[in-house]
């Protein structure tokens, strides 16, 4: 009787482990259009309304929890933010002056300034689920193909770039954050020469980005410089992201790292850990043909 129980227990364990390994191997080697992925999308499609409901119902709990967390965090940031504020007030005055000058000069050469965010047809979406594990870094939002969202659409929020849409269902979308290891973006540092490079997540640190391929002799880069999307266009190849969207600010600038490797560290502008509302740009190219993912 006892040995029968032991055999049964071991059999159940072995069967479960084997099923898991088969799923893992099969899923890992499959393309996104394969049966396992399709089944997964179907299940998420069913789950999505339940998650939306749960997210709404549980929002007071979430808000209370975040209030405590934010209070502790805010207390430690007051001093730093006061210093930043003083610096930004001075920068704002300079920027306003530059903007006025820019408008005048633009009128002079006939440039069009209508490419604001609204011209990219943003769709507001609520975050309904979040990956708690440091490895995947993605969020699920409550808007999908029914709202005109497609794979590859840029996602912005909290004053900066958040990521792009990686999976779309009828009523939900999965957004891969810019700190995910699969992401990289063309970006430029707002310095004297607008030096550009490629922004990738810092290996081993999901809250940091690294800007690579900068000119090693770049002079104007300093801690606090803003980093923006480039929105390049080269023949038929176009950037997924519109130009001028803030991505982050240069942190812990190290001249030696720039001179040796052409890299600087960047902190995302958007608070990706707390973001609850995002905007999906459904027409990333305000005019002309948009970039397409394969």
């Amino acid at each position: 009787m006892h040995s029968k129980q032991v055999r049964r227990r071991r059999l159940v364990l072995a069967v479960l482990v084997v099923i898991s390994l088969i799923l893992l191997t099969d899923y890992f080697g499959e393309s996104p259009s394969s049966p396992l992925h399709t089944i997964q999308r179907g299940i998420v499609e069913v789950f999505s309304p339940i998650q939306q409901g749960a997210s709404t119902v549980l929002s007071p709990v979430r808000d209370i929890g975040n209030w405590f967390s934010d209070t502790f965090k805010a207390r430690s940031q007051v001093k730093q933010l006061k210093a930043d504020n003083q610096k930004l007030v001075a920068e704002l005055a300079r920027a306003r002056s530059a903007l006025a000058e820019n408008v005048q000069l633009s009128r002079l050469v006939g440039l069009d300034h209508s490419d604001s965010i609204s011209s990219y047809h943003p769709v507001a979406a609520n975050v309904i689920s979040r990956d708690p594990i440091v490895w995947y870094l993605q969020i699920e939002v409550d808007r999908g193909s029914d709202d005109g969202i497609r794979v590859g659409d840029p996602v912005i929020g909290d004053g900066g770039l958040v990521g792009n849409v990686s999976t779309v269902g009828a009523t939900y979308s999965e957004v891969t954050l810019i700190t995910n290891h699969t992401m990289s973006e063309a970006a430029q540092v707002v310095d004297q020469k607008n030096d550009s490079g490629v922004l990738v997540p810092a290996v081993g640190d999901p809250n940091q980005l690294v800007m690579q391929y900068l000119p090693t002799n770049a002079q104007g880069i300093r801690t606090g410089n803003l980093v923006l999307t480039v929105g390049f266009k080269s023949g038929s190849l176009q950037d997924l992201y519109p130009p001028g969207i803030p991505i982050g600010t240069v942190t812990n600038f190290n001249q030696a790292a720039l001179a040796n490797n052409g890299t600087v560290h960047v902190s995302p502008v958007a608070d990706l850990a707390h973001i609850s509302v995002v905007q999906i740009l459904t027409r990333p190219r305000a005019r002309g043909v948009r970039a397409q993912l394969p």
Partner: protein
Amino acid sequence: MSISLSESWRLPVRLAILALLVVIIQEAALSQITIFGTSADLTPLVVMSVGLLAGSISGAIMGFGTGLLVDTVLFQTLGVTSLLYIAIGYWSGRLLELRDPSHGLVPMGVGAATTAFAGLGMALIQFLLGVDAPVSWLLLQQILVTVLVNTLIALPVYSFVRWVLRPVLPEDPRRRRRRAYTTGGLSPLEATAARARSRGRALTR
């Protein structure tokens, strides 16, 4: 026959509802509350609690189901979390079957161990799958904070799972004995002691 069949389904049905509920609460609310840069993870704690209460087979099956649900909902590689949670559920169940721990703080200790196992196991599997994120100090720090937070909430989670499963679990012999003592029933030890005392008295006479 129909009564016994419905009774045999009561535990799996409760486990399935519990898994569904926990995954939804985790993804829709808890994972969006950050504490020192990370968030509590209920799922390994629930799997651990099921193992500690219902045994190794139920624990392993619960681990498989919950892990699969987490992977599906989060668009992760299917099977990764299942593999880890099977181990958590199975070994928590084996702990119950082999040691039958009675101390009230056992869920805290096992909760901490299972959370650490889940965090480090996930890191190892991701490393083997080729994710470009080697173990860093920040990652270890996040795992440590999650372990700390999960240790604090392990007891309430265990109590909740026990409350959900108690009506469908086979009666715990320890609880039965304890009830017999408090309601005036004789424990086998007391009966033996009473017999020995009366025998001693007879001999002295």
